[in-house]
């Protein structure tokens, strides 16, 4: 494969993109993992979001909250129809191994718990409870009101409560 010197390939005016990438990529990747439950999908979503940010870097860098653009892009991209088709295919290709009684731990429980939530609740709980956004900030990312975010989180927590109580025993 052809070796490319990316230090040189960064176009003029995009040098600070690398700093932005280093500051935000890991957190975005992990947030998308929590939302999607798939490392591969998380990687795709995070990388796609950064490609879009790079294409519009002159504008994105001037935004009050460039990271907000990333999260909005990644969440929106997740609903792309063709992507959904491919993800369905990917799931069909790599079914999860069945759970074995006695092997589950807290981590398995939270993974299973998240998987049972509707996508909208999962997005809200990851953005607010894990990422630490306010309801209003999460609302801006998700395109809904702060009140709607609160409702989603409340419902998600109610669904997760039995699981959480078990894990605390």
């Amino acid at each position, binding site marked *: *494969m052809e070796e490319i010197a*990316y230090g040189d*390939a960064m176009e003029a005016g995009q040098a600070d993109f*690398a700093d932005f*990438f280093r500051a935000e*990529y*890991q957190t975005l*990747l*992990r947030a998308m*993992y*929590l939302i999607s439950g798939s*490392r*591969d999908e998380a*990687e*795709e979503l995070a*990388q*796609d979001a950064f*490609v*879009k940010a*790079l294409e*519009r870097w002159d*504008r994105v860098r*001037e*935004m*009050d909250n460039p990271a*907000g653009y990333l999260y*909005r892009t990644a969440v*929106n*991209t997740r*609903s*792309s*129809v*063709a*992507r*959904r*088709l*491919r993800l369905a*295919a*990917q799931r*069909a*290709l790599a079914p999860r191994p069945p759970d074995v009684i006695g092997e589950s731990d*807290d*981590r398995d429980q*939270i*993974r299973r718990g998240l998987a049972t939530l509707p996508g909208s609740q999962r997005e809200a*709980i990851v953005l607010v*409870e*894990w990422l630490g956004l306010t309801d209003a900030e999460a609302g*801006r990312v*998700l*395109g*809904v*009101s702060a*009140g*709607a975010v609160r*409702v989603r989180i409340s419902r998600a927590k109610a669904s*997760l409560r039995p699981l*959480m109580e078990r*894990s*605390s025993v």
Partner: protein
Amino acid sequence: MSDLKELLDREARLVEAAPEALESVLHRRDRKRRNQRIAAGFVGIAVFVAAVWMVTDGGWLDRSEVPADQTPSRFVDTWTSTEFYSGSSQTMTIRPAADGALDITLHDDSSWLCSTRQNRLGGVDTPSTLTGTGRLLDATTLVVPSFQVCPSGDALDVGPSTVEERATSYTLVLDVATDRLFDNLGVAWHRGATPENAADTTTECEILEPQVGSPGTCSMLRGEVTFRAAEPWFAHLDSYIDPRLFVLTSGPGLQGRLVTMDATIEILANPNPLPEGPCYRYPRLPASAEALVQAIRSNPDLGVTVPVAERVGRIDALRMDVAPVPGASRCPNGGVPVVSTSNSGWGTMGPAELGRLYVLDLPGGSARTLVIMIMASEAAFERAVEAAAPVVESFEFHAG
């Protein structure tokens, strides 16, 4: 009860960024540019060949000459579509099979479906293929219950994935008027090569920031639809994320995204009639403009004027004014739904707002319909319509 954040944290720490992640992003950007250049070159050749054929041989294809009994065979061909977000091309080949069935092969030129992690991170194109067998439900509807996935051959349910819609198989409907196939994932398929458009290089609106304030040409659907906008309109952030959506607001468009939407223009590709139940749904089979207008007019939550025929960008459109009735049901964002979109939050209007709608069938390209919604408070509505007029008059369609 265990601390939820701590549990989420533990789960999140399972995923680490690959050391080469930044290089991978740059690879992807370069690959995307290369694919766009290749596509542009291919389209140029295709246009030239078509022009030569028309002059020297075939003349224009008269679709009215296709005998009715041959309509099912009009599915048999190679069809292409472009993925909304990545721009990657998908090809679908439909061939006759035994017992009147049709064999379908879906091919994606750069999917990660069959690729290794190393390829994905290295930005290496990995084609993927899905195969299935379908049957005609009627002359214009082809239904495919399932696909076999590369290369393991596992069965795949490709219908919409929400529980209530899961019973639906993958469905393709032939739109005879434009000779396109629409599927129930909202995708348009074109016979032969995807008709790229000349406006694909159009710069987007330079009106993102209020202080910039200069007019610009806005594009959506990858340049298939363009229009001009200037102050007082500013592009909303979502316009730069979803190619099927453009939103202009009369307030500051971006600062913190806490916008003052005194008036808005929403331009929505492929909105659908409202579903029963939740306000938003993932894409379905795109409805025609006529079906959309009928659904809006029969919505008991909306008062709607009689549609008037108009032209938008030299395309026939229907214009009508709408207003929510007192006590109209609302979506979670507080808006009264007018149409359903896959992008939550749009296609609704404030309970005290008035709206002017233009609804039209697109002549070709990746979407079936376009709805332009101008919305403002009653006091500001006439001024908003007046300010929106130059935008509406500037629409151009570059596909079909």
